[in-house]
């Protein structure tokens, strides 16, 4: 299989604007930063959680707790994956019980990753609520899951993939649509 | 009834012969060995491109009959021998009952005549029931055709008994074949003691377990002026002691097995129980020393120590598995492939160690292509390549560590007393 880049749908400035908007929405919806924490799904949900927390700190002057969730052990597709994913640590150095948790990820697609993340979160404690923030929602849900905060809705076909690149991991910020080419 | 083996390369160490020649066999005896024999009424066996040797003699075989017919019997063991290129065997007395009297020895000779396809010479026990307590009736055994005495499988731990056996056997001029193993040193041992036993976590059998007994028996033989023959020697230290003893005139002979010449303790790491053998497969240094000793006269003959076992005896935990290798059908190819083809052993020497040497040692009128001798002939195809498949063995024992290996150089025909018994690895009678 090979991917070719079809379309660049977000650049650095778009991403920054979108995350600023989501930060405001989170604050508005939760009426401030009281008992609020942001937890990113490894890997690209992690930097997104950090950026949202940074934005919130700029707006409200308060640092909300940030964590990283590794959902590998909760995945439902372990036996069908091409190769075994590496398990990494979940780093949530605070008690999530009675917190409002904003779960962040880069792309919302089938919803299975979020399902796994919900299970993983609940094994860590009993949050007051869990909200979902994603940079891109590309549709094709296979589970009844819906994002609370969406950066951009992008209708796609199943032959396409969305690739999110973030500065912290990939060296630059962008979102592109790629198409699978059979070779 | 004449048979003319035509056009082969005849290697006969007894006559120092290595040339293209024909061998004429008449009434089961060798008649003539010379180039270009023309004998119109003889049946022709074309041996062009093959090597024609005196029939191979294996002086150390466990035929298991009587008593352990589920491991091997004389019918299957002698067929394995024929397929493997051997025309004569000496069978060890650790049967049930033990060959410690003429009745058992007679039984074996009779069964060999009735069911066997090669010559079988029994070896009697040194001590009654091989218990190491009282020496056997050697006159009785010799009268019944035994060519040597041995408690093989069990060492004679009592030095006094060994001394007396070495003395008493002088009456008959037969060797006392010593299985050298100090059972206190070898207790619970599973493989050669050394680097690999440490790596694999298997209790070792130190070289000293063999060597202290070799040292003891050499001293006893020297004092008793008796004849000691060491079975399946396996260590460098043993060789050195035998070399020195021969130099000072001790009457000592010895044999080495093909597996001790071609395999090392490293392969035990597979935990394949077919590598479990006593004495154990030794270190690389030991193997190299044994190979070197084949040419300098320290080693007198090669003998297989063919030790067949039933499947269950080997299909188990390594420590519980029986010792032994079913070796008759791979001895010749293993030696040709691993030693002769790579130039580590002259073919003439290999043939000498498997024909005239053991024959002269045990006073058998075989092992040489001399007119008037029984026509025992082994013909080799040095270029034949075949995979070792124990399931195809004639032996009931499929326990063989060469399994799966492609070996080059196989026996092509086996002729016993003038009759072709095996051709291309298959029995033809």
């Amino acid at each position, binding site marked *: 299989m090979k991917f070719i880049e079809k379309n660049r749908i977000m650049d650095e400035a778009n991403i920054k604007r979108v995350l600023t908007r989501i930060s405001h929405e989170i604050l508005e919806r939760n009426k401030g930063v009281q008992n609020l924490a942001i937890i990113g799904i490894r890997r690209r949900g992690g930097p997104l959680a950090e950026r949202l927390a940074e934005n919130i700190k700029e707006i409200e002057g308060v640092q909300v707790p940030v964590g990283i969730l*590794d959902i*590998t*052990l*909760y995945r439902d597709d*372990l*036996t*069908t*994956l*091409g*190769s*075994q*994913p*590496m*398990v*990494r*640590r*979940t780093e949530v150095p605070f008690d999530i019980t009675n917190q409002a948790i904003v779960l962040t990820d880069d792309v919302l697609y089938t919803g299975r990753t979020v399902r796994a993340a919900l*299970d*993983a979160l609940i*094994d*860590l*404690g009993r949050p007051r609520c869990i909200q979902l923030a994603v940079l891109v929602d590309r549709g094709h849900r296979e589970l009844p899951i819906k994002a609370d905060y969406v950066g951009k809705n992008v209708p796609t076909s199943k032959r396409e993939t969305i690739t999110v690149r973030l500065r912290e991991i990939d060296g630059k910020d962008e979102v592109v649509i790629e198409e699978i080419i059979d070779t | 009834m004449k048979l003319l083996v035509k056009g082969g390369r005849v290697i006969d160490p007894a006559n120092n012969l290595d040339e293209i020649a024909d061998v004429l066999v008449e009434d089961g005896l060798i008649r003539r060995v010379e180039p270009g024999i023309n004998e119109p009424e003889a049946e022709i066996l074309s041996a062009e491109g093959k090597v024609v040797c005196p029939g191979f003699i294996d002086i150390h075989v466990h035929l298991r009959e009587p008593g352990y017919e589920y491991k091997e019997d004389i019918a299957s063991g002698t067929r394995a021998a024929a397929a493997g290129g051997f025309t004569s065997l000496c069978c060890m007395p650790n049967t049930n009952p033990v060959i410690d009297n003429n009745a058992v020895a007679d039984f074996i000779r009779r069964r060999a005549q009735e069911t066997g396809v090669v010559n079988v010479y029994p070896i009697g026990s040194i001590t009654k029931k091989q218990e190491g307590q009282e020496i056997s009736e050697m006159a009785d055994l010799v009268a019944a055709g035994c060519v040597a005495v041995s408690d093989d499988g069990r060492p004679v731990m009592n030095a006094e008994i060994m001394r007396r056996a070495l003395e008493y056997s002088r009456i008959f001029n037969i060797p006392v074949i010593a299985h050298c193993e100090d059972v206190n040193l070898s207790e619970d041992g599973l493989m050669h*003691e*050394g*680097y690999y*036993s*440490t*790596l*694999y*976590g*298997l*209790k*070792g059998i*130190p070289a000293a377990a063999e060597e202290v007994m070799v040292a003891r028996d050499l001293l006893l033989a020297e004092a008793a002026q008796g004849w000691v023959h060491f079975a399946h020697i396996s260590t460098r230290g043993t060789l050195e002691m035998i070399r020195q003893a021969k130099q000072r005139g001790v009457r000592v002979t010895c044999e080495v097995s093909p597996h001790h010449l071609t395999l090392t303790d490293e392969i035990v790491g*597979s*935990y394949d129980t077919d590598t479990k053998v006593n004495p154990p497969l030794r270190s690389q240094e030991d193997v190299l020393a044994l190979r070197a000793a084949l040419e300098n006269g320290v080693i007198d003959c090669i003998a297989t120590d063919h030790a067949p076992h039933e499947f*269950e005896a080997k*299909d*188990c*935990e*390594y*420590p*519980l598995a029986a010792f032994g290798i079913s070796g008759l059908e791979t001895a010749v190819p293993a030696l040709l492939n691993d030693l002769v083809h790579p130039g580590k052993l002259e073919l003439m020497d290999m043939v000498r160690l498997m024909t005239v040497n053991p024959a002269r040692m045990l006073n058998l009128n075989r092992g040489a292509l001399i007119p008037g001798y029984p026509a025992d002939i082994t013909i080799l195809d040095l270029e034949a390549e075949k995979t070792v498949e124990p399931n195809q063995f004639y032996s009931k024992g499929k326990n063989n560590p060469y399994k799966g290996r492609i070996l080059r150089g196989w026996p092509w025909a086996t002729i016993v007393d003038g009759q072709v018994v095996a051709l291309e690895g298959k029995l033809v009678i």
Partner: protein
Amino acid sequence: MGFKGRKDLLGLQYLTRDEITTILDVAMPMKDIILRDIKKVPTLRGKVMVTLFYEPSTRTRTSFELAGKYLSADTVNLTVSTSSVQKGESLRDTIKTIEVMGTDVVVIRHSMSGVPNYVAQNTSMRVINAGDGIHEHPTQALLDMYSIREKKGTVENLKVAILGDILHSRVARSNIFGLQKFGCEVRVIGPPTLMPPDIEKIGVKKYFNTEEGLEGVDVINVLRIQKERQRRGLFPTLDEYANLYCLTRDRVALAQPDVLVLHPGPMNRGVEISSEVADSQVAVINEQVTNGVAVRMALLYLMMGGARDEIAG
């Protein structure tokens, strides 16, 4: 991923450095799970692990069992006495029976070296060696290495002394094989009668004198001494053994100031290790037990928690 293509874990001598690193890395998130309130993840739901122990061992068996349960595998324990097996069913038949019941991984402890190797060659199940004879005890060495890495920050290039009955110790062998792959200088200390033949050829330094061997080491791994060895004449009395080889505070003082003391347990206090040392800050013997569950979880995940073909190779 460093565990590709390996069906079984038979010993550390067969693993690469990368594979060991992978196991230790994955053990970190596993340890987090053990330390939290809900000690369970659904990863191995529907997988079946059978522990087949031919030697009594509460610790190792329990550790494997918990590791399996924390990962949601179904675990069944079979303890068989060696003597009854010798009379009865062959090992091949026992293994076949366990296999056809749908078992995914069999964890074997046996008094005879090489049994896991034999089993691995005769089954489609995955096989984990939980200690075989005097051959290997890979998961014990992995937990030792994990403990070392956790406390020292690395397992590379350390000086590690293994003290005691080296000859009969599968723990010693697995530690040697594992630590050497990370460039450690491994020293073995014990009486000549309890030293394996040609141990130096494996690349370790051999000491009969405890004081000399402990000089400047970063880690001391103390082995359990079994009383039956005395009956076989390998040392005269336990008292004399303790006199020469017991890890005391004075002897610990010869090592690096930040030395770490390990013991696979159960301890014979006052024989191979003094209570003073066992209960001191330098000893992490209890934490080793926790780490044991973590590395076993890591192993079970790596062996079973992924695409079957990929791992089966």
